[in-house]
């Protein structure tokens, strides 16, 4: 068995594009769920809106890349407002239902045959990322330390991605230690109490939804740009559930929780997957085939999440004291 391959793949995944995308998606979810208690199950929708915002503007309409980014961000804000206006006055579970449906609506609209000319149907869109890679500061080639290496395009995506993650973490850190963040955390605990203290709860929940949604759309940009293409089925609900796994693994309501969660999630996922593949290839494991490894891997993810919720519900960075209070 090639242990170097197994570990280098795992490390690459832990700092690679998927980890960055899921870190950003989970930072957005952390604002929604971790800090404000909004059960948003439609984070994939925000990623889709961001990805298709930039892709449609550039590939279909032939407008500049930066305008595409602005349109993607504006679309995420609009999506948050559309979701929030009817649902944020209702109980939390309604938001969960509506967000999961809204994300599916976005996916079904962009993959529809009727709008194939605009969004490209199931094939999606491509040829919108030239400007992005045109800004690449790295000259073509492979960059890396030892067995861990990325090509210049991936490295450019990772550079931009990790800068965005750092910036998002910095903003989250600043606002969450401010009185604004205090209102959000209070809303998570009991929104009637917050109302009775003269705070406009609806407005704060909306701000949180927009803020987290915009960070989700950043993940969408990276998702589309890293593949130089965007397909509707990338934004199915499992993306949202993986993002929740990442968030809970790292620790909700912690600034670095989603980042740590994303790194560990992808590192472990690929470690186990490559490990199993290698073991099957070298006849260490004989009762499964290589084709079955992928499914078994996701079964193990499910098992891992269950064990995590039972034995460490606060995640890696969470505070046990805060969780214990729920068992009053």
């Amino acid at each position: 068995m090639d242990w170097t391959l197994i570990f280098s793949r795992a490390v690459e995944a832990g700092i690679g594009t998927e980890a960055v995308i899921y870190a950003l998606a989970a930072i957005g979810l952390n604002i929604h769920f971790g800090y404000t208690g909004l059960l948003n199950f439609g984070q994939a929708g925000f990623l889709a809106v961001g990805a298709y915002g930039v892709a449609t503007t550039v590939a279909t309409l032939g407008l500049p890349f930066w305008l595409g980014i602005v349109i993607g961000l504006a679309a995420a804000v609009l999506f948050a407002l559309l979701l929030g206006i009817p649902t944020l006055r209702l109980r939390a579970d309604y938001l969960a239902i509506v967000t999961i449906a809204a994300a599916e609506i976005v996916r079904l609209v962009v993959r529809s045959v009727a709008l194939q000319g605009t969004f490209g149907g199931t094939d999606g869109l491509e040829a919108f990322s030239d400007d992005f890679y045109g800004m690449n500061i790295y000259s073509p080639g492979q960059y890396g330390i030892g067995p861990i290496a990325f090509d210049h395009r991936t490295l450019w995506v990772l550079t931009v991605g990790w800068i965005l993650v750092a910036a998002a973490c910095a903003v989250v850190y600043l606002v969450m230690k401010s009185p604004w963040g205090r209102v959000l955390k209070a809303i998570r605990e009991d929104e009637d109490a917050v109302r009775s203290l003269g705070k406009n709860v609806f407005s704060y929940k909306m701000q949180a939804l927009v803020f987290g949604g915009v960070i989700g759309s950043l993940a969408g940009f990276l998702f589309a740009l890293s593949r130089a293409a965007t397909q509707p089925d990338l934004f199915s609900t499992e993306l949202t559930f993986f993002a929740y796994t990442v968030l809970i693994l790292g620790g909700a309501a912690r600034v670095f929780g989603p980042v740590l969660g994303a790194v560990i999630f992808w590192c472990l996922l690929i470690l186990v997957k490559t490990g199993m593949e290698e073991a099957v290839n070298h006849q260490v494991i004989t009762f499964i085939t290589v084709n079955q490894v992928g499914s078994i891997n996701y079964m193990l993810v499910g098992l891992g999440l269950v064990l995590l919720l039972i034995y460490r519900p606060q995640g890696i960075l969470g505070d046990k004291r805060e969780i214990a209070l729920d068992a009053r």
Partner: protein
Amino acid sequence: MHADTVNRKAEALAALASVPSEPGAPKPDPILVVDNVVRRFGGLTAVEVEHVEIQRGSITALIGPNGAGKTTFFNQLTGFDTADSGAWTFNGKPMNGVSAHQVARRGMVRTFQLTKALSKLTVMENMRLGAQKQRGENFFRALFSGLWQPQEDEITVRAEELLERFKLGAKRDDFAGSLSGGQRKLLEMARALMVGPELVMLDEPMAGVNPALTQSLLGHVKDLREQGMTVLFVEHDMDMVRDISDWVIVMAQGTVIAEGPPDTIMADARVIDAYLGAHHDAPLTTAEAEEQLHQAEAELEAEIEEKA
């Protein structure tokens, strides 16, 4: 301080001395005036209050048997529920249709029957949350701590003073969820004061509080009046009501059936009827007595279950 205490109470009592003990009696200087507030849940009329005035600077108790509509009435007044009809004014300004947070901003702050301490925030954070017009509560200003830190420091000083007064100073950095039931009541009251209210509305401030702490809570409620605030509170315990209130309003089946000074009210036939049933002093047959006993037990059990 002591002389002042006597004064405020005396002032309130003097102002109320000439008010007739009748439902809907006009007060010399009302802070809150309620007219024809009706709230129905399907076929059930939970609240139907014709006219009530609350005297400024007094402690007014709102009492009544279970299900009399006291809390529902509270919810209407504070914007937590929408009245089907009616109008009410606070400081002369109409308040119907005003949302809950606006009601609080205008100086009418409530607490809840089931205490709403924000468990995963520290006691100090709970207190700071109560302060109004915080610059740092705007998202963009929140990013620059220099813009709100000075105000935050002022708020902290005020919060510390209040926590000392409510004997919670030692708990300032504990999570609110780790406090005892009585301490949570104290915290909720202190937090409400951070808003800087004119009218404090306490929904069963003494429920579930041990007797030792009750005395201290009572002291705090009296203290609110001494600081020039008006207090309206819902309570079950008659002894407590007699001890601290200047005026008592009695609700039963959604309507105000009586009001007056505590001693008058305790002797009022309508009030006794409402609490004990209209025929409580009429002779009973053994069978009737048995039935009433069962009924009372069932009600008691229901109440216990409700509380649990």
